[in-house]
């Protein structure tokens, strides 16, 4: 038998007999399962999800669901093919033992695997004060059940809604409130909405959009406390500038936390920023060595990206979940040289205040921005982000048909500022600073230390928590 023939036989046997476990039953988990079967994997497949629901789509939750048009349970994802899996829904994974190759579940069960895919995604960051967070009328939005609860609260027509945090979800929720003609206050610590994702220049435009639509937008302030009434229902928020707002629905939209706690002790390169992996979805262990049996996909994955100086990027985007899962699943049942890289040009969209905001590339990688097409005043325009003379991202407001032109420029590492259009040039085509905030210093990064002296003994360990 030749070596290639032997390898092919190994792969064939593996696909017939191996046990694969997918932890996470959302978009990435589902698409990974489908890809495994599509690739000819016929062994036992287990899908573990902490929510009791079968895979559903999240983007509608902050839009048509909250608005009351679409019920929260009408978000079930279409299937691309049969997956013939054992679904363990409503039970969270609590540990990963790489020595015995088992996933531990909260009910005590151990699920053995030959390959495991980590697709546990993120959860909403809760309001930090537990007593205040427990007040009735205080919400977060991440899951389908969250959306159902919040939708009911909005349908009851509260006197005012307070949204804390003006990222994409917070802004979309504010937009829905205004469509429902509910008074809404948005409190944002940063200088403007969307600054983290799109920078201060675009943030300023987003701020105007909110105010034009009647949002009481307060930037540069934090909420220092929430106050409830005798029945334990939230009534008031106190801001860092001393002012207060009366609100009977408060939504904490403070971003997301990656679901990595269950990996503690697994010896993987996981932490605040996600689980490190190569561009093929293969997880790194704590030493930065790639593993053979652990894979990562979706919001929780963090991989080096060729277009962005090989920096590790975590992309909490819909197509990253789909395409990253498909690449990882392919690689789970193939061997070199048949590995496939996940070389996504990231992209996202957000519908708010009647404007379709779309982006391609990684805006926050840029330090300059230039308006390239259309009119900011009309909120119909395109802008490009650049760094060191190269285009790295673009954003469009109601100009989505042009986005792929910029996508191609980014893929080709085209010049910044990009060549001007032949028509519809904006009044000002000078690049200006994009005004991204300094990256916050995360407080919960686990510390890693090196131990051992002999090269064969050197390894990294997490410093034990005190």
């Amino acid at each position, binding site marked *: 038998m030749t070596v290639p023939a032997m390898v092919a036989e190994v792969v064939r046997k593996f696909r017939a007999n191996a046990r694969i476990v997918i932890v996470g039953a959302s978009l990435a988990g589902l698409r990974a399962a489908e890809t495994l079967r599509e690739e000819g994997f016929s062994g036992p497949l287990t899908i573990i999800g902490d929510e009791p629901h079968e895979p559903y789509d999240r983007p509608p939750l902050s839009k048509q669901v909250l608005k009351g048009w679409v019920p929260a349970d009408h978000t*079930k994802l279409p299937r691309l093919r049969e997956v013939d899996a054992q679904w*363990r829904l409503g039970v969270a994974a609590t540990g990963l033992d790489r020595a015995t190759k088992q996933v531990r579940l909260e009910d005590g069960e151990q699920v053995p695997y030959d390959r495991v895919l980590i697709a546990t995604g993120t959860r909403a960051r809760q309001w930090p004060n537990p007593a205040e967070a427990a007040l009735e009328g205080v919400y977060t939005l991440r899951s389908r059940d969250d959306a159902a609860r919040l939708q009911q609260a909005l349908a009851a027509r509260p006197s005012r809604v307070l949204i804390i945090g003006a990222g994409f979800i917070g802004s979309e929720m504010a937009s829905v409130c205004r469509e429902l003609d509910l008074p809404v206050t948005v409190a944002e610590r940063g200088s403007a909405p969307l600054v983290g994702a799109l920078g201060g220049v675009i943030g300023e435009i987003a701020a105007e959009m909110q105010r034009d639509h009647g949002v009481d937008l307060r930037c540069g302030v934090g909420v220092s406390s929430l106050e409830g009434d005798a029945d334990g229902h939230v009534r008031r928020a106190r801001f860092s500038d001393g002012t207060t707002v009366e609100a009977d629905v408060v939504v904490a939209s403070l971003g997301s936390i990656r679901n990595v706690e269950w990996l503690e002790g697994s010896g993987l390169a996981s932490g605040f920023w996600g689980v490190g992996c190569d561009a093929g979805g293969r997880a790194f262990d704590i030493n930065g060595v790639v593993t053979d049996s652990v894979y990562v996909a979706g919001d929780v994955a963090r991989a080096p990206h060729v277009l962005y100086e090989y920096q590790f990027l975590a992309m909490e985007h819909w197509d990253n979940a789909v395409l990253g899962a498909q690449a990882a699943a392919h690689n789970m049942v193939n061997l070199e040289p048949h590995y496939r890289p996940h070389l996504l040009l990231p992209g996202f969209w957000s519908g708010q205040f009647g404007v379709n905001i779309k982006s391609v590339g990684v805006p926050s990688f840029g330090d300059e921005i230039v308006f390239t097409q259309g009119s900011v005043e009309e909120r119909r325009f395109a802008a490009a982000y650049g760094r060191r003379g190269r285009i790295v991202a673009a954003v469009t407001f109601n100009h989505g048909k042009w986005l792929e032109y910029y996508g191609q420029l980014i893929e080709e590492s085209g010049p910044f500022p990009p060549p001007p259009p032949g028509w519809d040039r904006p009044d000002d085509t000078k690049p200006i600073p994009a005004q991204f905030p300094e990256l916050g210093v995360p407080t919960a990064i686990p510390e890693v230390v090196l131990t051992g002296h002999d090269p064969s003994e050197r390894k990294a360990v997490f410093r034990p928590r005190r």
Partner: protein
Amino acid sequence: MRIVVDLNRCQGYAQCVFLAHEVFRLSGDETLTYEPNPDDEQRLRVQRAAAACPVQAIVIDRLEGAERSVTP
């Protein structure tokens, strides 16, 4: 039935809204929202919409009627 629209691909041509306006809605110039699990009576219209999409962004469940076998 179940559908999902890849809104990264979507460029706002709104062909789906013309063909199945109870399932797909446009607000503003190009913001598309839709009912992800529409009634079965919308099937023909949704199929028309999916076929008409200039960027083929509409995915319809391929297991319609088949056992989805999700057991909690």
